[in-house]
Each structure stands twice: as C-alpha cells, then as structure tokens.
C-alpha cells in the first residue's frame, strides 16, 4: 500500500493578512514496511505535511494518494483512510478524554463500528504493544498517569485502529530520557514485529539515526534531502547550515578522525561505534596521554 505525495503545496489562511505557505512542491513515495524519519527545524512544515497523509488537511494544490485513493476526492471514505494511516499527534496525551484508559483506547475502534468483543481484544492488544499492563492500568483514570504513560495510552489509541502506516509526530517531545527510550523501543518493535510502515517526525538526529532506514529532511517548507541515513549524515555541513545537527555518533567519529584515528565513513549507529571503539581499545591502538 504505497503512500504517494505529488507536488503538494499548502498555504495556511489563503487570502488573509497572515497568509503563510507552509509546503512547496513536495513529492515522494513511501513503500510498504519502510521506516522513514522526517527531520527539520521548528516551523519547517513537518506537522503540516504529516496532516496531509491522512486527509486532515486538504492540499492547496497537488495530491496525496493512499493505496491509489486520492484524499482530496470528495467521495473517498475518510474513515477508511484514517484507519489505514494512523496519525499520532505532537503531544498526543492532550487528546485523552475518557474516564478510564481502557475507554480512551477504545474510542478509535468504536468509531470504526466494531463489536464489543473485537474492541476489547484490540484494546488489550494495543496496550500490550505499548507495554502497558492491562490489569493494572486499564481501569485507571488517564489523568492519574505519568506523562510518559499518557503518551503511550495515546499511541495505543491509534494502534487499536490497526493502521498499516503509522505516522508519529514528535513522539518523544517533552519526555525524560527514560521515557524517550521506552517510546523509541516500542516504535522499533512495532516496525520489526508487525511490519508496520512508520513515518517518524523528529527534531532529534540521534533518534532518527538509531531507527530510520530512510531520512527525509525539510527546510522552510521544502523537501531538501531524501535518502538513506548514510547519504544524509555525510552531508553534515549542509545540515548544520539548516540549523540541524548530525547525530552525536557522527560527531564523535569526526572528532576521532581529527585526532588521527582511522574511522571508516558512514557510521551513525550507537552499536557500530561501540563495536569499533571496543576493537580499537583491544588492539591497544589508544594510549591515554
């Protein structure tokens, strides 16, 4: 089920005094099972783009095709599309409203018109996917939970609709390091276990470097780079000019290279660098001065 975006433009408040064009001629295709990291500076249009992927915003021009269905088509089945492309908003915990966790997660499946049994199954499944203990948490009020737990409930609420593409807008924003780690782990697991296509919006190069197989970079409403992490992270200078950083691992490699260590190009994952450094240490190539 490919997700195709063609020459997408979006202008907010067209014709008004505060008219702003947020997207310029964006085109790309996302294939089944891909893990795409979408990065860009604040205000570069990431959230705007992402809201086009399930038809919450309508393009000013251009089109978005999900499974061949044009989202701007008046007759397109909106619910069906939103079920296929699940979108987890930035600060998703702000959308929680039900009395209990269980009911809140059930909101999506209920809107799809499923029967009670199926809803219950999906709620349990979704809670398992985000590692929330059903017996302990399900009957609690959502407002009793910690920030990280609330975020996970919100993600479960979207997962319960069983989307084949999951779009997450800054899923780690505002969480402590432990919370971030947990969320990233669960996203990785989702991708590996159920083969869900993932589009993850992030400010953090590190998060993207750890997870994504393909990286898209946005700058002031334009899609300026689109490629594998190796390709993108070797263009560090350009990234810095756009106010973005390269991942810490890449920075570390650069530093090591500058001090005369022989570090191969294209290393950007924590595991790889760890391996490399252990090797260097074992070989005794490094002596404290």
């Amino acid at each position, binding site marked *: 089920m490919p997700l195709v975006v063609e020459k997408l433009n979006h202008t907010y408040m067209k014709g008004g005094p505060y008219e702003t064009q947020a997207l310029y001629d964006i085109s790309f295709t996302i294939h089944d099972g891909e893990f795409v990291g979408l990065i860009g500076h604040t205000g570069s249009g990431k959230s705007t783009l992402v809201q086009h992927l399930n038809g919450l915003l309508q393009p000013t021009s251009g089109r978005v095709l999900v499974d061949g269905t044009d989202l701007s088509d008046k007759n397109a089945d909106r619910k069906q599309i939103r079920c296929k492309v699940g979108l987890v908003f930035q600060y998703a915990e*702000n959308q929680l409203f039900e009395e209990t966790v269980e009911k809140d997660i059930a909101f999506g499946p209920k809107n799809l018109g499923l029967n009670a049994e199926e809803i219950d199954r999906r709620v349990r499944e979704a809670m398992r996917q985000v590692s929330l203990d059903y017996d302990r948490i399900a009957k609690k009020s959502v407002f009793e939970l910690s920030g990280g737990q609330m975020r996970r409930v919100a993600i479960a609420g979207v997962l319960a609709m069983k989307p084949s593409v999951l779009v997450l807008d800054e899923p780690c924003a505002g969480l402590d390091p432990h919370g971030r780690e947990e969320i990233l782990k669960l996203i990785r697991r989702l991708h590996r276990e159920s083969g869900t296509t993932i589009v993850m919006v992030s400010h953090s190069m590190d998060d993207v470097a750890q997870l994504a197989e393909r990286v898209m970079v946005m700058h002031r409403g334009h899609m300026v780079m689109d490629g594998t992490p190796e390709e993108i992270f070797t263009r560090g200078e350009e990234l810095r000019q756009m106010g973005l950083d390269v991942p810490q691992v890449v920075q570390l490699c650069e530093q090591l290279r500058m001090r005369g260590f022989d570090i191969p190009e294209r290393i950007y994952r924590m595991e790889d660098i760890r391996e490399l450094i252990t090797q260097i240490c074992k070989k005794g190539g490094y002596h404290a001065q």
Partner: protein
Amino acid sequence: MLNDITLGQYFPGNSPIHRMDPRAKLLLTVVYIVALFLVKSFVGYALSLAFLYLVVRLAKIPFKYLIKGVKPLRFIILFTFLLNLFFLTGEKVLLVLGPFRLTQEALFNALYFSLRLVFLVMGSSVLTLTTSPVQLTDALERILHPLQRFHFPAHELAMMMTIALRFIPTLLDETDKIQKAQMARGADFESGNLIQRAKAMIPLLVPLFVSSFRRANDLAMAMEARCYRGGDHRTRLRELRYTRLDGMAALAVCGFVALIVLEGHFFG
C-alpha cells in the same frame, strides 16, 4: 476551519485609522453606534454605509472582512427580522398569512432593525480590525480609570480582558488540534442528529477544559513569579496620547451625527 470569526481579529496596518488613539476610536465607535439608533429612514442607512465605507477605505481593509464579520450572525439577524415582520402591527396591510397580518410598517421596521444590527456589527468590526486587542483593553482601562475612585476594578477588568483576548487564538489553535487528533481516531463532528453531534463534542471539550485549566494555572504562577500585584503604581510601556488625527476623526464623526440628526428631521 475556525478562521471565520472576524470580531476580535486584528488586521495589521499603518493607516491613519490604525494610528489613531485607541481611546478615541473606542469612544467614536460608541458615538457611531448611538447615531445608528437615531436613523429614521433608508437615506440614513445609506449615509451610515457611505461613512463606514469611507472609514474602511481609509483603513485599507478589504470590505469583505466586514461582511465576513456579519456572517456568523446571519441567523440572529434573520430571526429578528422575521420576528419583527410578523409581530409588529400597523395600518397598511400588505398580506394575510393565516393568523398573521403583514403590514407595511412592520416590513419597514423589520428591515430597519436588521440593518441596524448589521451596521452595529460592521461598525464594531472596524474598531477591532484596526485596533490590536492590547490597545483596546489599554484604552478601556484608561477610560474607566476615573471610576476607580468608587472602587470600580478598572485595572483588573482590563487585565482579565487582555488575558481572555490573548488566549482566544491559542484556544482556537488548541481546539483545531484536538479536533484533528480525534478525527484521526475516526471521530465524526459533522454528521448525525443534534444529540449525536452534542455527544461528539465530548472528546473535544474535555481535553480543552483540561488544557485551559492547566494554562490558567501556569499563567497565574508566571505572573506571580514576576511579582504582579494589580494596578497600583504600575507604569506603562506605551503611554496613550491624543493627536491631531483623533481631532479630525472626532470632527468627521460629529459631521456624520449632524447629518443623521438632519435626516431624522426631514425623512423621519
């Protein structure tokens, strides 16, 4: 989706109208509205329209913004029109519809009444389109200041209004976001009967309330942290000052009122 509320939406600019003292603008708008109640005929409404048009041209606001401001009120206007039409009595019967008698006087009165409403909204829209909310509440505070001697909380009132106005766009943004987040989970805000629609609002209203309370709490804390304690001995960043512009505007409005009074005399 929530962008069609003009009232309270500032249209930035640097026209003479924008540069006027907000106090003068506020007071003159009130005078204009009072004058509307003196209008006795269509000639008077034509005059009011001409005057409004002139001001809008001076302010360099597209006229369609005023129309947009009236749009949300169209049902109220229609309703008052119909109410007046069928319940006012008069001599010259134009039409009999069952128990209702439509008279010429009623028709005219209904039209006058609706027109007055339309002009009232458009007039105040000119004020809010050319004056930023902060200026507006500043003006209100200065105007009400003398009443403080009688323990009228002018500063507090103005501060409350500033805060309320400041948070309207934030709340609209928030509403938009939550609405979209729920739509992403398959919520439907547009179809269904009245009860279903009211029920569909719950997923929107609960998070909105929660975040509003949180915001209010944060704001109170932030104000306290900066030692805010009411209006006593506070100086202001922008002093308000009347200029020649305001004098000219006052003359123009006086001229308009004189015309309306004359009109009432000749056509009323």
